[in-house]
């Protein structure tokens, strides 16, 4: 019933793996990504503009993004093909020289789960993975709405990761493509998400922005005490223009829900150094609209 959607997602993934039909190369330092104009330019304003005009890149078929954070670029490319990122160790991408032929329904691609809730044995069962992919498919076309809903919750702490809602989200086929949850849980990756968010903003990829924002929000709740938090705040406030509220709102709401965060020494340091953040916190504390 949902096989056409599954088929499309897995076809995209295998295009990326095999580099077949690739007509564009993105390079970051030494890394090279063989991509497809049809797939990437239709998603990113920047890439579309780059290929549309007779400048150097469109002649050579190579776009050099070495000025960008290599990891962020990798996640961006990942997103183009898997509709997700950061679900594999970054070593995977070196799988250009890669290994086993990839089937979209291979165990590797089984349902992404919150490890606390799911039996790992089940996760590894290919049949179960198929079943869950099929069951979850009805949500395939609506995930952005789900993200929105979740993110505009004023009280983020109220949305516990193990609520039934969250469970449903986790079964979303977009996220079934990859696993490796353990690493995810252990590492907050807050800075990384902020960077992905920034690159999505810079290159005009709205879907990726939404996704990064969701990940950032989710991770922030799980890792309030993380040492990454202060730096992430700074990244949020300095990598995009003021009017971009996506991550800023999440940060401010987190401060509102957890006032004692600012008592942390490292946090205090960052607030002192980041006037944008300090100003908004001041507005918040005075009950004024944070941004007008």
């Amino acid at each position, binding site marked *: 019933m949902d096989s056409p959607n599954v088929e499309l997602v897995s076809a995209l993934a295998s295009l990326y793996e095999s580099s077949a039909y690739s007509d564009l190369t993105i390079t970051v330092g030494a890394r090279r990504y063989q991509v497809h104009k049809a797939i990437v330019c239709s998603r990113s*304003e*920047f890439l579309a*503009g*780059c290929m*549309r*005009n*007779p*400048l*150097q*890149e*469109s*002649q050579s078929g190579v*776009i*050099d*993004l070495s*000025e960008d*954070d290599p990891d962020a670029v990798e996640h961006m490319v990942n997103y183009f093909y898997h509709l997700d990122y950061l679900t594999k160790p970054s070593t995977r991408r070196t799988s250009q020289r890669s290994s086993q032929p990839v089937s979209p329904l291979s165990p590797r691609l089984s349902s992404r789960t919150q490890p606390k809730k799911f039996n790992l044995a089940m996760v590894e069962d290919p049949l179960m993975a198929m079943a869950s992919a099929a069951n979850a498919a009805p949500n395939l076309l609506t995930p952005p709405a789900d993200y929105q809903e979740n993110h505009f919750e004023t009280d983020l702490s109220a949305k516990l990761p193990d609520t039934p809602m969250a469970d449903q989200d986790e079964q979303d086929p977009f996220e079934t493509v990859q696993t490796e949850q353990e690493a995810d849980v252990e590492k907050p990756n807050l800075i990384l998400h902020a*960077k992905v968010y920034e690159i999505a903003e*810079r290159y*005009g990829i709205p879907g990726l922005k939404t996704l990064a924002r969701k990940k950032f929000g989710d991770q922030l709740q799980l890792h309030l005490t993380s040492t990454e938090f202060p730096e992430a705040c*700074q990244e949020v406030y*300095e*990598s*995009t*223009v*003021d*009017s971009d509220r996506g991550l800023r709102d999440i940060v401010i709401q987190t401060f509102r829900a957890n006032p004692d965060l600012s008592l942390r020494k490292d946090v205090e340091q960052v607030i002192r*150094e980041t*006037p944008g953040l300090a*100003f908004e916190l001041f*507005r918040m504390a005075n009950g004024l609209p944070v*941004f*007008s």
Partner: protein
Amino acid sequence: MIAGRGRQRIRPPRRSLQGDSDIDFENTWGTIASAFREIHTKNASRLSYEELYRHAYRIVLKKKGEELYKRVKEFEHEWLSNEVRGSIQALFSPNLLADTQSLGGTTTNERRVAGEKFLRGLKQAWGDHQVCMSMLADVLMYMDRVYCQDHRRPSIYTAAMFLFRDDILNSPTSDQDGRVVLSLLNHVILDQIQMERDGDIVDKHLIKSCVYMLENLYEDEMESEDSRLYSLSFEREYLDSSREFYRQESELMLRDSDAGAYCRRARQRIREEEDRCRSTLLEVTAPKIQKVVEDELVKNRIRELVDMESGVRFMIDNDRVEELNLIFDLNARVDPKKGELTRSIQKRIVDLGNDINSAALVASQAPAAATAESGDKGKGAAQEKSLNQQTVAAIKWVEDVLRLKDKFDSIWRGSFNEDQPLQTALTRSFADFINSTTFPRSSEYISLFIDENMKKGIKGKTEAEVDAVLEKAIILLRYIQDKDLFERYYKKHLCRRLLMNKSISNDVEKHMISKMKIELGNNFTMKLEAMFKDMTISEELTDGFKKHVAGLGDKDPKRIELGINVLTSMTWPLETMGNDDDEESKRPKCNFPTSIERIKLGFEKYYNEKHSGRKLTWLVNMGTADIKATFPRVPNKDGTFRERRHDLNVSTYGMIILLLFNDLPEGHSLTFEEIQAHTNIPHNDLVRNLQSLAVAPGKRILLKEPMSKDVKATDRFLFNESFNGKFVKIKIGVVASGNKVESDRERRETEKKNDDSRAFQIEAAVVRIMKQRKELLHQQLVSETLAQLAAQFKPEVNMIKKRIESLIEREYLERMEGAKTDMYRYLA
């Protein structure tokens, strides 16, 4: 915007990613500007898009978006003013500039070449500008997305288009000349179009490119639909100059060519302009220019065109179907009612119709006048002849009218696309001349036409042909306004046909009635049908009586057979049969010979047995009789003697007269007075019958002394024993029978009768209306009465007034006291 946001210090770098975030704006801009210069000079291929994008992105991120936007605009302004404008100005050849002031001095060809060169250059500049700006806009994408949107500025691409408008199109053509490039551009395009109108071939594609440019540039920053330069600047001038051109052209053509050529040219021009909008200009202009052309070539000229010597009248008379179609088409474009064409067609119909009318009057009146003056009975034959002529005139009239109708019908089908309003107009015009007050004979003529066909015309024709003839009559009948008058004539003519057995086919008669029934309604044919019914009943009566007599057992070899027609009074227009001057009661009873009287009584008895309480009145003047007459032997040419027998068909009066001579000894004669005394036949009838028995050549059964055409009271009559007829059967008609056009006197009477019956109908209508409405204003009453009677005739308002007065006198209505305007109340 909250305080503290906006211009801020740039944070010192903290991490490698933003290591160069402390950009030097001027440096970065320098890089960007030089790249833009490369793009403008078509050297873009060595530039890195990523790098330029990144520079622009960083500037915007560091809140220098506004500065960047301003710099780009300045850059473009400089570029256009310094580089592009010069190259455009280089295109102005002297004759191109010169001819904006005066047309003299250069040939068309030179102008065209110079114009094309200019257009091509401008098109090139515009094209380059568009291409470069779309590249720049892609590089500055992030600025558009963040800065322009947040600050509600037009995108950099749009802003650059405005710059092109201001720095190129609105710049002066040269330092001396105050005119701007845009007006020169308009002028050149118009000039090229004019060349095309004059038959030259121009580069439509090139013009269209420039037109697209004007379409995509706006006068204001809002980019509203009606502020396009195309509509504000070019289109307006185009329409004005076209108007002027077509005004002159139409004047010239009206003077120099005929209407047909004018129509063809006008249609061609309309198509050309339509094509031009498609191929050279924009479709949005099509309806506007079309209106201009139609206004100038058609709307303002249609009257002159229609009235030209070679105009509509000429086209109609010469059956110029195609030209009429053109003129119809043109007129329809500017006037859905096609007023001018309609007016002219109607006038032509009425003119032609009146010609037919007066031809008919001339044909009939000249001799009629003569007889009317003499008024002498002795001129009966002459009168008959003139009446015959009139009948011929009547039939010719009908056929002429039908021919005219056929003509216009075929024009209507062939030229007017079967346009409904025009058909209505045609019908109205036909009705106009057919019902013209100067020609009161239409009803009679149409009835006569039917009469003629019923008696002779349809002989030997197939059913379909007969039907076609009847249909023609119906067509004309539709035009007749005073249907009641027609009914009167038709009844009269039908009456004669029925009683005198003149109809060729009863079926056709009935067919005609049913056609009229469909056309005019039940009411109209009721009495006609009653006449047919009387005829049928009469046949049955005759048969019945014959059997009755046979049943009496009285076998009399000399028995006289009686054929009888019992006619319901009021249904039949009997006055038309000759007993016009007397009323029923006053008619003297003529004396029948005994043998006849017996049969008469016998029938009366028989009839009364069947229908008691009915009174039979014998209309002796309308009967005929077959008599066997035996003439004594006279020597034949070869010397033999033979008794001669003839079957004489005479009128009933004639029979009575002849029977008198049966009882008379041989050689005796009777005077007129004696005959009158014996028979009691009315004077007029007696005169006519004696004339036909004794005067008509070849049929002189009686001899008259002295022999003359006129019959005087002292004349003597005797049996013509030496009568010698060529045929066994001899029909002795009575003078003045058969359906002819009425004499003037008759017509006056018919009209008077008609008026009387109209008076009655009007009263009936008034009473019906008042009974329902109880109270009504005078004006309303009149108009409702007119509406009710419209199907039958169109009464004069005066007549209605008189009838109302009469009804008030007779206390059906009363005038309401105190009402401001006249108002009536119905009195139950």
